[in-house]
C-alpha cells in the first residue's frame, strides 16, 4: 500500500481552517522562521479517510480476531468506556493547578481519587498515585519510591541491589536500573517459580527490593510468596508487585495481604481499556503507608469536608514522573469499567479468565509440551519443543495461526521456556471461540509432522509474507525520504 506521502498532490487541502477575525500580525524576523513548510501530506478528506480506513483493515484486533497474546490481557473493550472517556475531552489540566483551580475540577480530581481508592481495595494497598503513564512507568515510579524510602532511613548508599526472578518482564530490571540499582537475577526452580533456596542465598541487607510478578509469567501462583516477602522484609527490602497479571486474582488474593509494599497496575490489561496498537496505557502505583510520604506531586488529597485538594509541597516526594495527572482518559475508562462490573463482576472476571486458560491448557497438552504441568492461573505456557523435532519453531506456528485468522499467542517469552508459546484467552472469550482456536492449534501440531514446510511458508493470506527483519535493522530506514 502506498504511503500517504505518495498520495500527495501539491496544493491539495484536507481541511478548511476557521477564517481569521483579527488583523494579520507583522512578520517575524527571517532568522526565526523555517525556510520551507514541513513536507506533510496534501490529500483530500476522502483520500485521507480511505487511506486510514484501508490501513486499519491490515490489522488484526480484538474486535476482529481472537487475540490470545499472553501477558497482555487482550480482553474485550466495552464500547461504553469510549463514550465515557469522551465526556472529559474539554477539561484543561492546568485549571486544577491554578490558584483556587481545584474548585473547578472537583469532578475529575474526585474520579482520580475514587479510582485510587478502588484500586487500593482491589490490591490491598493504602494509597494509589494515578500519575504513571504506563506499566513500565509505574515500575520506575515504584522503585524510585523504594529508593526514597531507603534514603529517608539513611540507607541509600547501603542498598544497592534489586532482586528479580529470571522469568521477570524485561521492564523490571530496566526500570530498576533507572532508579540506580544493580540487578540480581534468581533462576526458576522445577516448580515453575523463583528458586527459594537460591533466593535466600541472594538476599542480603544490601538488597533494596524484590520485584515479583504474581502469578508469574508462567501463569503460576508462587506457593512460597509469603515466605519470600518475610525473608525480604527481614533484610529491610521492600516487595514490589508487577501487576501485569492482576486479572487472575481479583477478589481472590490481595498483593498487600501477601506482603507486597508497592505495586503497579496495568489499567489497559486488567481493567479493560483498549491497547491502542501499543498505547496509551496507564500504570497507577499503590503503596503501603510507609511509602506515602514519597509519592509524586501533585498528590490528590481529600479534606475533612470531602473536598479534593492538591498537595504540591512535600519535601520527601520523589518529584514528578509526568507532566500532569497521568493518562486521565484511560483512567476514566478503567473507572467506568470497575464501577460497571462491581465487586461480583470483577471476581467473575478472574474466575473465568482462570477457567479459560486451564481449559485451553488441558485441551492442548496432548499436542504441545507443557513444561510446568499444573493448575495455571489466567495464562498457560507451552513449548514448541515437540514440533522442533520436525524443524518447526514457535514462530512458524504463530504464522500458521495468522493464516487461520488468529492473532498468535506470545512467543519466545518467558525466555526461560525454550520455544515458548504463551496463551492468555481472557475471560471475554466464549467457549465456542476457544474450541475453534483449539482446533486450529491441533491442526498446527499435526501439520508440523505432516508438512512442516507449510508452516515455514506461512502466512500466505496476508498483504505481505514474512519480512526481512535483518535488512530493516541493518539499513534503518525509519522515515520516508522526500
Amino acid at each position, binding site marked *: 500500500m502506498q504511503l500517504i*506521502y505518495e498520495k500527495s498532490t501539491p496544493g491539495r487541502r*484536507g481541511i478548511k*481552517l476557521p477564517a481569521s477575525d*483579527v488583523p494579520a500580525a507583522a512578520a517575524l524576523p527571517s532568522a*526565526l522562521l*523555517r525556510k520551507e513548510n514541513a513536507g*506533510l501530506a*496534501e*490529500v483530500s478528506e476522502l483520500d*485521507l*479517510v480511505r487511506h486510514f*480506513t484501508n*490501513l486499519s483493515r491490515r490489522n488484526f*484486533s480484538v*474486535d476482529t480476531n481472537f487475540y490470545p497474546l499472553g501477558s497482555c490481557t487482550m480482553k474485550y473493550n466495552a464500547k461504553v468506556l469510549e463514550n465515557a472517556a*469522551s465526556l472529559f475531552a*474539554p*477539561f*484543561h*489540566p492546568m*485549571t486544577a493547578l*491554578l*490558584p*483556587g*483551580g481545584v474548585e*473547578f475540577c472537583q*469532578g475529575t480530581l474526585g474520579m482520580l481519587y475514587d479510582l485510587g481508592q478502588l484500586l487500593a481495595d482491589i490490591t490491598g494497598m493504602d494509597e494509589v498515585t494515578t500519575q504513571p503513564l504506563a*506499566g*513500565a512507568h509505574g515500575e520506575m515510579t515504584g522503585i524510585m519510591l523504594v529508593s526514597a524510602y531507603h534514603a529517608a532511613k539513611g540507607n541509600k548508599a547501603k542498598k544497592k541491589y534489586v532482586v528479580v526472578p529470571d522469568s521477570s518482564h524485561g521492564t523490571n530490571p*530496566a526500570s530498576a*536500573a533507572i532508579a540506580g540499582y544493580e540487578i540480581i537475577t534468581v533462576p526458576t526452580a522445577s516448580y515453575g517459580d523463583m528458586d527459594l533456596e537460591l533466593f535466600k542465598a541472594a538476599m542480603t541487607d544490601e538488597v533494596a527490593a524484590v520485584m515479583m510478578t504474581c502469578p508469574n509469567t508462567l501463569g503460576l501462583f508462587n*506457593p512460597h510468596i*509469603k515466605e519470600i516477602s518475610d525473608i525480604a522484609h527481614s533484610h529491610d527490602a521492600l516487595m514490589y508487585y508487577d501487576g501485569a497479571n492482576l486479572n487472575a486474582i481479583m477478589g481472590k*488474593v490481595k498483593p498487600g495481604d501477601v506482603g507486597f509494599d508497592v505495586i503497579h497496575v496495568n489499567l489497559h490489561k486488567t481493567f479493560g481499556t483498549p491497547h491502542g*496498537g501499543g*498505547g*496509551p496505557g496507564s500504570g497507577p502505583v499503590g503503596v503501603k503507608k510507609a511509602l506515602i510520604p514519597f509519592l509524586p506531586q501533585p498528590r490528590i488529597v481529600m479534606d475533612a469536608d470531602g473536598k479534593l485538594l492538591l498537595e504540591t509541597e512535600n519535601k520527601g516526594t520523589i*518529584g514528578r514522573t509526568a*507532566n500532569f*495527572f*497521568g493518562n486521565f482518559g*484511560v483512567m476514566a475508562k478503567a473507572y467506568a469499567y470497575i464501577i*460497571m*462490573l462491581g*465487586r*461480583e*463482576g470483577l471476581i467473575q*472476571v478472574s474466575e473465568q479468565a482462570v*477457567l479459560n486458560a486451564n*481449559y485451553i491448557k*488441558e485441551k492442548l497438552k496432548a499436542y504441545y509440551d507443557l513444561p510446568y504441568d499444573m*493448575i495455571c492461573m489466567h495464562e498457560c505456557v507451552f513449548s514448541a519443543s515437540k514440533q522442533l523435532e520436525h524443524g518447526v519453531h514457535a514462530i512458524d506456528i504463530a*504464522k500458521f495461526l495468522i493464516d487461520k485468522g488468529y492473532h498468535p499467542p506470545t512467543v519466545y517469552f518467558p525466555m526461560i521456556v525454550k520455544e515458548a508459546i504463551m496463551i492468555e484467552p481472557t475471560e471475554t472469550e466464549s*467457549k465456542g471461540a476457544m474450541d475453534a482456536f483449539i482446533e486450529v492449534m491441533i491442526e498446527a501440531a499435526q501439520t508440523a509432522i505432516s508438512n512442516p514446510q507449510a508452516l515455514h511458508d506461512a502466512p500466505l493470506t*496476508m498483504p*505481505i*509474507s514474512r519480512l526481512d*527483519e535483518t535488512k530493516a*535493522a541493518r539499513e534503518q530506514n*525509519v522515515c520516508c525520504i522526500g
Partner: protein
Amino acid sequence: MNESHYCPHTPEEIAEMLSVIGVASVEDLFAPIPAELRAKTFNLPSGMSEFETFDRMKAIAGDNTQGVTNFIGGGFYDHIIPAVVDHLSGRAEFYTAYTPYQPECSQGTLQALFEYQTAICRLTGLDVSNASLYDGGTACAEAAMMALRVTGRNKIVVDGCVSPFSRQVLKTYLFNQDVEVIEIAPQAGLLGRAELAALLDDSVAAVLVQNPNFFGSIEDFTALADQVHAKGALLIGSVYPIALGMLKSPGETGIDIAVGDGQSLGNPLSFGGPSFGFIAAKKSYIRNMPGRIVGETVDRNGKRGYVLTLQAREQHIKRHKATSNICSNQGLCALRGLIFLSSVGKEGLADLARLNRDKAEYAKAQLSRIPGVTVLPSITFNEFTLSLPKNAAGVVVALLGSGIAAGVPLGQYYKGSENCLVVTVTEKRTKKEIDTFAKELEVALCN
C-alpha cells in the same frame, strides 16, 4: 451467576469445561493460592448496567465547571481537532490492537507509525524519529538520558525557561543516576546566555532549551548550537509542534535531539492525558534512542513492508542495559497526531500557525492597553507574558469566577514573578472572547 455479561459462559458450558479440566468447581482452580493468603475483604460496590455507568460518568464530568474559556496553555493547548481524527482513530482495528509484534497482521499500525515517524522527521527537520514516548516531560528526560549515553558524560544543563513540569520530570528521572543537573536562571524570559557560556565546558553532556519557552518567548538557538557542539555536547530542543508550522526547525537550528508533547496534534485536553511525546534526532544517534522504532523492509517476495526494528536496544532483550525502560508507546495518540497533520497538511499547518500568532498578537495589543499592564518585550508565538499591577494569582482566581481561565500565574514557578501572567491564545479563541477577556481583566485590576 452471570454478574458480568462480558463473561459469556452459560452454567452448562462452565460445567463442561470443569469436567475437561478435571476439577469440581471454579474455586478448585484457585487451590494453588494458600488459604491463609486469600482475600478477607473485597469491599467494592456492586456493579451496574452500562447505562447507569454512563450516567454516573456524566455526573462526574458535570462536577467540573463547564464552559471555561481557555487562555491557559502551559504545555497543553486548546486546538481544533478535525472530525476525521476521532472517526479514523476510533476504528476498532486500530484501537483494539496491540503492539505490532506480528508484522504480517499488523501492517496497519506499522505503516501508520512509519508515516508518523516521517511526519515528525519532516516537522523537526531531523533524520530519525521513534514511534512516540509517553509525553513531553518524559521525552525531555529520555532525551537527556540519550545524550548521557552518546557523550559518556554526566552533566545536563537546563534552561530555566523550559517548562517547570518538564524540568521536574527530568530531575526525577535523573535523581538516582549520578548525574549533575544545572539550571540556568531566566533573564527577562529568555535563556541566560552569559551564565550558560560560563558553565559550558567539556564535561557537559547536553543543554536543554525550549522554543517557544514557558514565558512564550521565541529565540534563535543557531549560534548556541555551535557553542554547544564546540564543547562536544549535544543541544536538546523541546518544541511546540504547531509553532513548527512557522518557526525555524530544530534541524535548521542545529539541534541534535528534538522533543515535545504531541497533545496539540489532534489529542483532546482530557485533563492532561493521554497525549504523546515525540523525539527526533540526527541519524548517528539512532542506536541510543529510547522506545520503539518502525523500519521499512521487504517480504519474501520483495514487497515493501514495515517492522519494529532495532529491538535489541529495548528492555525485553537488553533488560537492565536497555536504552530505556519504556515498553509501550502512545500508539493511538501518535496515530491521532499523524491523522491531524495529514488532514491539516503542508500549507494548512503554516496557516494554522499564522492564525495562532495573529490571534495572540491581537490579544497582546488589547491586553497591554489596560492601564498598569505591560508585556514582556520578547518575540512570541501564541503565548506571551504580561506584568500586572497586582498579584497575578488573585486576578486569575477572580476571572475564573467569570468563566475565563486567564492564564498561568508565574509566581508558583518563578520567585519574584508574582505579578506575571502567561496568556495563551490559540486559533480557537475569537476576537469577541479576546475583547471580553480584556474588559474583564481591566475590571479585575480595578477592583
